[in-house]
């Protein structure tokens, strides 16, 4: 199975936000999307999520994704925006149950199976003890896990995360990356992940899409771009590189 795009373009107010991007990644990949501000990272993620109109084609296992979205539903794909909404007066269990919305209909509510899946998702993210707590009272790290838990409740196999660590401190960021890697392994998820955190993705990510001003600069194995010349050119600032004790590159 694979996720690929061919000549993908997105327009907003007649302006070309994404310009003929193509890529192809095997299912189960961890793909980071990097680039300076305004490169089109969020737009690309939203397009993959089916939230924006586009030209070109998105293919899941060589089948046009329009067809997939049309004939199945969007459960296959979970999108977590950068600014997560935190609804007033909603408990964590209610929040995660929203992930089962597509599996219910106009008349029937969630059944026993839905509750079992939600329970499992909460357990997986170590949130079982907080299920009756209001989401408003959760910490930043817990809220990120809550959104992942909702994504798991959706039974999605494609996870689209828009700068999920931007509001987390060092420790929580590392915890979050470890968790994502674990989930990817356990549940065979494919992950597209936009970020500015080059140092972390060099450690965790396998593939990368590099964007600048809506154009694809590179897509492929991450090792190929982890050099200071390329990244200095990309971000238009002088970057230096050192290798850490455990062998990962560190840019500063």
């Amino acid at each position, binding site marked *: 199975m694979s996720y690929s795009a061919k000549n993908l373009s997105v327009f907003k107010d007649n302006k070309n936000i994404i310009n003929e991007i193509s890529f192809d990644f095997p299912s189960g990949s961890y793909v980071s999307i990097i680039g300076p501000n305004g490169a089109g990272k969020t737009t690309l993620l939203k397009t993959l999520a089916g939230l924006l109109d586009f030209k070109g084609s998105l293919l899941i296992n060589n089948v046009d994704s329009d067809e997939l979205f049309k004939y199945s539903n969007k459960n296959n794909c979970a999108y977590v*925006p950068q600014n997560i*909404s935190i609804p*007033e007066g909603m408990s964590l*269990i209610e929040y995660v149950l929203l992930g089962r919305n597509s599996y219910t209909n106009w008349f029937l*509510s969630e059944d026993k199976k839905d509750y079992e899946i939600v329970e499992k998702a909460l357990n997986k993210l170590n949130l079982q003890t907080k299920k009756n707590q209001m989401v408003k009272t959760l910490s930043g790290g817990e809220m990120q896990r809550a959104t992942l838990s909702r994504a798991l409740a959706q039974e999605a196999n494609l996870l689209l995360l828009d700068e999920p660590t931007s509001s987390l401190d060092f420790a929580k960021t590392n915890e979050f990356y470890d968790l994502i890697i674990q989930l990817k392994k356990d549940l065979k998820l494919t992950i597209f992940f936009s970020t500015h955190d080059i140092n972390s993705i060099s450690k965790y990510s396998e593939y990368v899409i590099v964007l600048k001003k809506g154009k694809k600069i590179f897509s492929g194995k991450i090792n190929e771009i982890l050099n200071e010349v390329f990244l200095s050119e990309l971000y238009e600032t002088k970057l230096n590189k050192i290798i850490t004790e455990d062998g990962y590159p560190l840019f500063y």
Partner: protein
Amino acid sequence: MEKVFKFSNKSIVFSIILVLVSLIISVSIGAAEISTDEIVGIFLREILGYQSNTEINNINKIIILEWRLPRFCLGFLVGASLAIAGCGFQGVFKNPLADPFLLGSAAGAGLGVTLVIVNDLNYSFGIINSVQLGAFIGALGAVICAAFISISAGKSIASLLLAGIATAAFLTACQTYLMHKYYSSMQEIYSWIIGRLLTSGWEDVITILPYFTVCFIIIFLFRKELDLLRLSEDEAKMLGGNPRRTYFIVLTASSLLTAVAVSLSGLIAFVGLVIPHILRLTVSSSYRIIIPLSALVGGSFLTIADTFSRTVISPSELPIGIVTAFIGAPFFAFLLKASKGSF
């Protein structure tokens, strides 16, 4: 795992008791003193078909069956309509301050009624009179006008809100101008604006019932979509929701409910704003729970307020809008204080 979105026993028992209490208060209190035995006798014999030995005065029978009972039903349906419409507006606009008159329906209805009164249009269309028709057309016309302005301004929910404010301001200005020009009609217009439940029997109940039933079912079916809208629009879409469809259908049904309620009772403020709020603070914030309970609590609240309005300065009537605000505002303030910012 225990079901999450369920009605607690407390909320069910409380709602049922509230409805029964409001029914008892409405039919037993009024200018004419009718004994409890006689009221029970009328209910048993005339409604439930049981034999009863209680002596029943014919005038009292008419007062109960043709005046107080239809007035209770009308008050209940108007209160329930405004409370459900309030849920719809608050859900779509994601704003607890939204009320059913947000898109200009109050101002539109006010102008419609003012035009009917100042032009002395006393017509009757079946069981609907010209004032009711003026209010209905005005309320719905204002919402449609706001929707058209919003469509030309980018179709966003924020533009709809602003278009509603602009429409309401314009229509209120027109109405105020007419009220000043036709000074002699001011009292009649003003008494309608404050809201009142005057009924001539079961006709008004029959008028509102089909609208109420259809719109309530529609809004209730969208309960889960309204819960999804508590997230961002993108998240709602990714979880299988269709925000645009929800905005359109829920706002249409809510506006229709408001227009019918306003045409029959005038502008009764506070019910649509506060009842969903009170339920959110005390029972649940999920629309699955709030929508049906709003119908029961909103309906009961308005009938109790109506009983006050027709008995406090009996035999005259106090406008019901004054009573709803007078009872509801302090209670709401107390709940807000008790919630200590948890809302």
